């Protein structure tokens, strides 16, 4: 049996006694590519916070697989307006991803610098190294944040709507890049996604959240399910977005 990366067991996440996600159970296997989809307000981002350990479940448990430390989960956030205008070089941003291995020690060592350089190389953005983060295009910025998350991650990265606001071509490219990483580097990918077609096209598993239930399975199973058909139909009417 494959080892699991994350196991959610009857998880309920709530804000002020209002359950946002309730009684959710699923397992992310090592090497999995999971996309979490669903309409706005169904708790996708809250679930992400739960998986990151930033929010404690009010009941149930979220267990990380053997050998995975909380601090070794990579995270690619939704972009905030603060970041879009942040004066920092790509190198500074990527290097900051290695911070979790530094502890209290100031500065960055040779090991951290090598790691950051390696990840820039891996994502093909070495030439952006000394560019300013705020001068990049949306797609480049996401690659930089992905590189940073890979500096922090050993096995698992979580992404929260990383392609929001990107054009379809760049989005498609980004999903492909993730698939590459997933296959070649054996990195487990868990992503909240708005781009339904791309998610169905690339993911191994789909977790669909709706107001009162959820669906977990492969994209094919999802597309065949009643919930999936209803959701996909609605998305088509709006150009592929929920």
């Amino acid at each position, binding site marked *: 049996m494959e080892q699991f990366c994350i196991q959610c067991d009857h998880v309920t996440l709530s804000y002020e006694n209002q359950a946002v996600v309730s009684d959710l159970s699923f397992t992310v296997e090592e090497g999995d590519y999971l996309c979490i989809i669903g309409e706005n307000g169904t708790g996708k981002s809250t679930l992400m916070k739960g998986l990151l*350990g930033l929010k404690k479940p009010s009941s149930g448990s979220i267990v990380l697989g053997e050998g995975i430390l*909380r*601090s070794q989960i990579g995270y690619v*956030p939704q972009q905030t307006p603060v970041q879009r205008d942040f004066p*920092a070089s790509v190198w500074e*941003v990527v290097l900051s991803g290695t911070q979790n291995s530094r502890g209290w020690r*100031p*500065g960055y060592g040779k090991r951290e610098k090598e790691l950051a350089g390696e990840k820039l190389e891996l994502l093909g953005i070495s030439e952006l190294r000394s560019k*300013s983060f705020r*001068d990049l295009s949306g797609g480049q910025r996401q690659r930089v944040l992905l590189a940073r998350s890979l500096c922090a991650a050993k096995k698992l990265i979580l992404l929260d709507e990383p392609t929001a606001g990107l054009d379809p071509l760049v989005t498609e490219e980004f999903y492909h890049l993730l698939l590459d990483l997933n296959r070649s580097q054996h990195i487990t990918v868990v992503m909240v996604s708005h781009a339904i077609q791309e998610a169905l096209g690339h993911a191994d598993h789909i977790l669909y959240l709706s107001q009162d239930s959820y669906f977990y399975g492969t994209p094919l199973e999802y597309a065949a399910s009643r919930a999936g058909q209803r959701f996909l139909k609605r998305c088509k009417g709006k150009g592929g977005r929920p």
Partner: protein
Amino acid sequence: MIEYVTRMFSYPFMVRALAVGLLVSLCAALLGVSLVLKRYSMIGDGLSHVGFGAVAVASALHLAPLAVAVPVVVAAAFLLLLLGESGRLKGDAATAVFSTGALAVGVMVMSVSTGMNADVNSYLFGSILAASRQDVAVSVVLSVIVLILYVFFYEKLFAVTFDETFAKATGMKTGVYNALLAVLTAVVVVLGMRMMGALLISSLIVFPALTAMRLFRSYRSVILGAVAFSLLGFLAGIGISFGWGAPAGASIVVVDMALFGICSFAAWPRRR
């Protein structure tokens, strides 16, 4: 020119003011970059009003102003931070409540105890004559501590400023670093208050950072640029103040403003 500078340095109080001023300007510029980027620009202003209240109470009780103001303002900074996190009173509203409240208490205490005299003026608008020998010693020691802590935690403060969620998710104690930032800011605000005045200290924090951000694109260069602009603004401001007998604080702000204007203009063609 040389004669002018020599004459300036022949007064012991000017030498003291320069020593303290340069150190405090340096610290303010460093912290300013983080504060501006975290959208906390007004926190300096709020804290300085609290500082004014504390200094007023201290002088009414004949206590050393710095010994009272530093702990009070540090406590206020902590409280603002906690309130901001718990979300009961939003950050800007909390700052407004604190600053006006403390200012009112300060003015009340002052008018009842010593009367509204020149002292009030020097606290509100700053005075380079205000620094006593003891004040200078305390200021130098505290600003050197701020400097050391800042340099030691430079990378952490960058990580927390750039992306707090990421930092937290990867196991950094973001609360500790936010608190550190608040405490350092509080100390710098109190130290700078004597020179700049309660009403003007936040410009010492905000202007150099904003000016540097116009010109530079990487974090390190913004930091170094802010320090350079801050020191330049301070020296030019002090010079003007000495020549025309204008208050040092206001002169420094006017120079900072001019630098900001020039750099914005210079950077304008590059903006798309």
